[in-house]
């Protein structure tokens, strides 16, 4: 019993597919096919996470999210076919915690559910073990004294070079580093055209920390300038 997830979508096949995927991972799944039904299910069952579609009959997803947010603080992931940035911003501002565009990658969706649930259920643990030397950034946390990176409270196994890169980026959240600077500070020597070397390492780190390494959320390329660790809440 890892947790109870409510899946809401007017497309029954999608609800079914997601349910199967999540049940395989050991979650209990409640199903709803419109916004109103979703509200009922939340009242009836101890739902810990909601996956909800935007365009639905009776009560649309965003309105449902607003209603849920009035009472519950559980993680909500919005599913939508709209992929524009403005749609994402709207969804997040309505109170959603995450926004996944259709057609989603099933593995990535499951990873996100897992990540959100873990953070939600172990929220108390985080606060209990707060260390002054810990840097939090969304799913990630980095303990500077131990030089260990945690993703969803799980320690991430990094090589020495990768740890150096993570150390640099986590200590300077949001700051853009040109490849030359990263190279100089990590390898401690000047380099000619270090892009390839840096990129290889960054790709490896991404595979360890990102939910979908092809669409990274944390270590991002600022094209034409450099690399940065994106700041999250």
């Amino acid at each position: 019993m890892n947790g109870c997830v409510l899946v809401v979508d007017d497309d029954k096949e999608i609800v079914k597919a997601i349910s199967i995927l999540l049940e395989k991972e050991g979650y209990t799944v409640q199903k709803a096919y419109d916004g109103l039904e979703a509200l009922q299910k939340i009242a009836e069952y101890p739902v810990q996470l909601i996956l909800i579609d935007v365009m639905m009959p009776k009560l649309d997803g965003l309105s449902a999210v607003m209603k849920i947010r009035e009472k519950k603080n559980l993680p909500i992931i919005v599913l939508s076919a709209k992929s524009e940035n403005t749609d994402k911003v709207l969804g997040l501002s309505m109170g959603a915690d995450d926004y996944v565009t259709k057609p989603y990658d099933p593995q990535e969706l499951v990873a996100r559910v897992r990540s959100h649930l873990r953070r939600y259920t172990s929220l108390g643990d985080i606060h209990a073990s707060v260390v002054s030397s810990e840097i939090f950034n969304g799913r990630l946390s980095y303990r500077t004294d131990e030089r260990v990176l945690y993703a969803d409270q799980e320690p991430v196994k990094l090589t020495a070079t990768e740890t150096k890169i993570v150390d640099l980026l986590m200590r300077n959240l949001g700051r853009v580093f040109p490849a030359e600077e990263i190279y100089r500070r990590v390898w401690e020597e000047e380099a000619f055209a270090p892009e390839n070397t840096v990129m290889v390492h960054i790709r490896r780190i991404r595979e360890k920390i990102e939910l979908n390494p092809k669409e990274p959320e944390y270590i991002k390329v600022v094209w034409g300038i450099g690399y940065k660790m994106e700041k999250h809440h």
Partner: protein
Amino acid sequence: MATKWKSIISFTAFFLGITLLLSGVIDSVYLLSSRTSWKAQIREAFEEDYQNTGEFRRQMADYLENFLGMATGGPLWGNVYREYYGYYDDYTYNNMEGVYAVESGTGDWSWNFSEEYPNEVAEAIGGYSSDYDEYGGYEYGDLEDSDYSSKEENKKRAERYHNAIKDDKNILYKITYNDGTVYTNAEGTELDGAGMTAPKDYNFLMYFDGNTVKMRKDGKDIDVYKDGYYRDDSDWYVPGYKNFTVDEETQKATVTIAAAKSPKLYIKGDYAKDSSKQLYNRLYWIEYNQRSQKGRFLALAASLALGIVLIAVYLILRKDKKRADRWIARITGKIWYEVKLILLLSALGLVLFHSGYWWDDFFMRIQFGEFYPGIFQELFREMFAWTGGVVGLFWIIYLFVNDHRCNQKVWKQSICGHIAEAFRAADLKLPFQRRVVHRYIPLIAVTGVLILLSGASLLIFCLAGGYEIVPLLVLMILVVLGAVLLVYMQMNYMKKNERLMLDTGILIDQIKTVRDGAITSEIQVQPDSDLAGAVQDLNDIRKGMDTAVKEQIKSERMKVELVSNVSHDIKTPLTSIISYVELLKQEDGLPDYIRDYVQILDSKSQKLKEMVQDVFEVSKAASGQLPVEIEALDLGKLLRQTLADMSERIADSRIQVKTDIPEEEIMIMADGQRLYRVFQNLLQNALQYSLDGSRIYVNLKTDGSVAVASVKNTSASEIPADVNFTERFTRGDSSRTDGGSGLGLSIAKSFTEACGGRMTVETIADLFVVTVEFPQIH
């Protein structure tokens, strides 16, 4: 209906009121501007007793003079004598009463100036024969060959005069000389001068005792001499003043005259010689004229009062009168302007020249150098003598002004206007180039006529040697008029050409503006301009372009909407496909061939997912709706990052990538994320279609102002000619079996342009070259 009647009433009140007021004012001015002061005129007209008027006093003085002449055997002058002295001041208007008497056909005017009426009187007073000619004046004319010192002749005249007036019993007289009665018509009456008694009904008595005159009216003596000196304003022109004495012979005479209280008309049937005749009746006519004068003044006052009342009515309804004005103007507007002008001018001429006398006099005086400003006052008076004429003129002017006020461009509704309009219309039908040339034909014609006229005048001058003055003069005047016309026409052409040039300038500017893309601006010139047609055409072209562009924008937007909707509709079932493929993939114990099938489903559904996203983005970019975040970035670094990002794929392929990217920064303004997609697509393209074992060259160059990045590769297959590779869904291989979406280059191009750059594709044999250019910033 009510407003219609209001209009009619208002206008009628206006018309009658103005007519009455105007004629009243004109009559008053005319009446009161005569010899005596207007106050005295009114006072005398309203005098109850005719004996209190100046006319009566003058007449009595005349009688006295004539009677003294008769007593002493001197010549008789009478009224005529004094009229003579009045000649130059105001001969025409000297006797207002007389004028009306003449009009009524019974007055004494004719006594003064006509030979047909009491002739005997005229003859008696000195054989004077007046010549009342057609010019309204009379000449101091043909006196008979008479000797005024001859006592015999004078006695005959006195006899005749006595016979002419003695039966007019409105006056009784007794003339004595040396204490013997000479003439009297008062036999058997109690007329006694010395005793100052007169018969009943004769309330006025005048007695000359040889030195002074005594007068008694209604039993009361009249103070004749006041302070004893005669002045211009003295009532009585009779001897006896300290400065008006008589000679010794006259001192021997006495004259007694009594005037009737109410004069009557005396007629005598002299049937033995002639028909019945009215007698002199001077006093009767004085009273008659005074009474009729009073009537005139009363009528005048009444008409003025009525006029004022009517004007007040009009003022109350003046708004309704404006409607009537407009209605009248609608009618007058239909009349040709020339007709109106001729009507106005002839009315004006008729009023000014209606008697003609003044003009003759005017020119005569100018001829004799006898010119003075007062002559215009006389013209004024003469004009005012014809009330009907002046009022009529006023109304004609009113109609004319009303026409001008209510109708626009009244002169267009005229013969000349219609002819000019017809010419202009015919002119506009001609093509522009001929129209401009045609315009000069009248100028040439006028010039030709002018030359002919000048030649003719020269010929006449040479042949006639200066004797044929009149035709030469006429020709010269025509030449001068022609020259003036020529100058006027030239100025007109100048103005027209100036406007043509101005319009041409406007047109040229507009052509340039439209070419520069400002297809919303429109120009206007006057509709009668030579270039109006061209301007209209240009405006139509511009409108057509505007419509086309708007249509295009609209259709682009609809296309994007369609693509957006379709891609959204595809995404939902695609989500299911991908989800269930994933479930299939996780299924254990599937046979290997099924696992292969699932593998194919997986890759194709992933491909479909990418394509849906690509189609959506490229349609947005093509319609200019792609959001971009422009910032300064290093193009070289971006290329290196892209190559690093794709290093795995490059390493996996059998194709080498050769780069030539300068180390130093090459900064441009662009959206990094979009530009990464551009080069990613270009490199993917190159990797996919390059010949195995060949090389891809990635170069970046700059000339300081433009950064040029290029990707060159050798195509594996033959590149077809005449293919626009940046067109959507275009591929080198038309069989569409290579797995590409055909959107790669299209996305690259539209993203480049959305960032403000330029992308070109070039093929040289099998060499495929894509160039991306951005303006460099420093």
